[in-house]
């Protein structure tokens, strides 16, 4: 794995990441694609929920909450 890549759930709150790779398969992967999570899409990590998981992200103008299981399958590069 490229050293600069990190799973989306590890992206610090308030920072931006660029999607580089999806490691999810099947339906989960398609759902992510439907949200517009394609190569080079910029995602902002907005805030944690009270328990720390899920985390809300801004993806293409929409605010979407992802559980860590899903977010960890999205590899991003810190912008």
């Amino acid at each position, binding site marked *: 794995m490229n050293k600069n890549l990190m799973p989306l759930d590890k992206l610090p709150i308030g920072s931006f990441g660029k999607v580089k790779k999806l490691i*999810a398969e099947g339906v989960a992967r398609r759902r992510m694609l439907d949200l517009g999570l394609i190569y080079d*899409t910029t995602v902002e990590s907005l*805030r944690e929920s*009270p328990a*720390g*998981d899920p985390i809300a992200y801004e*993806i293409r103008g929409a605010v979407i*909450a992802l559980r860590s299981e899903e977010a960890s399958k999205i590899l991003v590069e810190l912008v």
Partner: protein
Amino acid sequence: MGLTKQSTGAGALKEMFEVELESPDDIVVALAGNPNTGKSTVFNSLTGLNQHTGNWPGKTVSNAQGNFTHRNKKYILVDLPGTYSLLANSVEEQVARDFICFGNPHATVVVTDATCIERNLNLVLQIMEITNKVIVCINLMDEAKRKKINIDINKLSNLLGVPVVGTSARSGEGLDELKDIVEKVASGEIIPTPTYVSYDEILEKAIKEVEPHIHYLVDNQMNSKWIALRLIDGDSPLLESMANYLNINLSQDDLLENRIDLARIKLEEENIEIEDLRDRIVLSIVKTAESIYKKVVYVENKAYNHLDRKVDNVLTSKLFGIPIMIALLGLVFWLTIEGSNVPSAMLAEGLFWIEGHLTVFFQWLGSPTWIHDILILGIYRTLAWVVSVMLPPMAIFFPLFTFLEDLGYLPRVAFNLDHYFKKACAHGKQALTMCMGFGCNAAGVIACRIIDSPRERLIAIITNNFVPCNGRFPTLIALASIFIASAAGAFSSFAATLSVLITIILGVILTLFISKLLSKTILKGLPSSFTLELPPYRKPQVGRIIVRSIFDRTLFVLGRAIAIAAPAGLVIWLMANITIADTSILTHCAQFLNPFAQLIGLDGYIMMAFILGLPANEIVIPILVMSYMSKGSMLELDSLTEMRQLLIDNGWTWLTAVCMMLFSLNHWPCGTTLWTIRKETQSWKWTWVSFLVPTVTGIVLCFVVAQGARLLGLV
């Protein structure tokens, strides 16, 4: 092999999609869109009260249809399930796609959110691949204006090649124009020429291998390029639907199979596996959406969502998120309890005043006493009780709840609570269906359709009953007001609110606990993937909220309660008045149940009230009071003090009140809910499980509390 008139005409619409046409001239319009775009507002604004809901044939996906008249023509509007895509990843997407594809609507309106156009265009582009009769409705223009997001509608229309109309459905703005355009597209006066997504070269080459043959098979009736790509992508639901609706059985077409294989080999030569193919398809669509978005939307104020973010920082913050949520819920209950006291008393007074006059009327008619007793003391009094106890709290609670819903607060609740649902191996959206259960458990069970995974949907259905519905609130509130508030003196309504709130929090904890238990036993499995959209906050439209919550919810629930309470009132009156060996049937039953009921802190009459209350939880307290009254019909609720005395006379202590509150929270779902569960799960087994799980929980809980309190000598 073209499409025959027969397979696509009105007959097919009715049989396969259950669209009822009154005349062949009716115009059928499909309404598609992402979730949270105000699609249902557009639907409601266009059709008003002329709508009905049901299910798509053979699917547990709700199908809402309505109609409106425009320039003397009747339009049937079919509300498709809200989806992000049409690539058939879920039943909803398949239903929506099949209708657009095979239902041959005269026009398809795609509702999009003006504040989130980029993501919405994804669906628009996919629909334009299927049909050219597309109208894009950019809704929530008022919100966009408020956030200073400028959209060049004409340019968007040019780029897409289809008509685009800006609307603010909540205030009705733009809807007339929308209707005009729909008319023109449906009549063929405007023939849209959609811009198709251009795929990369390799994909286009693969498509060319298959397309000519498809074109030969389906003629010009469907976009053969689109079908070709779907088939190369291995979209088997599409094949099934084509066989179902068009009688075109492509799976037995060897030539087609060869062509598809050939296309896939070409792709493999380029190192494109089937998963990559899907990525590439979506990539092309998203890129197209992105480039269009950049050309037509100008955001004046880049920080347009700062206010939303600030609000979210508080409402979902680590420190305040959950306390604020509980406080808001508490406020709603407090307003409901405080606000409904006076109107409840006034209604009761009014209805019993009428009763007095009805009695006089019956005497004047000279009708036999037993007819008067059955009709007035049995049926009328039960109804009067139900109306005066239920109507005011509902008329306050539902608008308040709808207000929070309209504001966009419920997804935040799901966001706050998701972690706990995940721990319980349940679906994050169960937090939403649970919230719906506060209104009505049957509605909550239907709402479970939003959960895709069958395992998690069952968990959500079975545990929905653990939050008290509107029918049970009056019981909880009455008990809290009578037994707990009276002990608290000056803070009475505060104490009552607090105890109701504690009961509800207990209900939520039980929901989580039982969900976990189910996931570890009969419904084993891991939580499925979950994405939750947190839509922008929206200014609630107070007028619309009141109308909607009064008509859609309050009157609906009240009507159902009345329909059930009237015959129940008759049965109870008969049971209380027919005597065997000097004792009424009701008392016989209660005496039989008493030893068991005592074990769990209740008495035989309370148990009997819960059993007879199966049709509707609202009537539990009225039945109980009626049973306690020696005269055998319900008393007039003059004051709560009188009621308290009646209960104490019948051996009640604070423990009885607590146990009854607990048992009210945890016992079998009402008849309507059970019937809904049977319909939704298509299984008696799961209906029984849904009956037993809360009942057993309630019995265990009450037993522990009652025996514990007695053991410790607290009573």
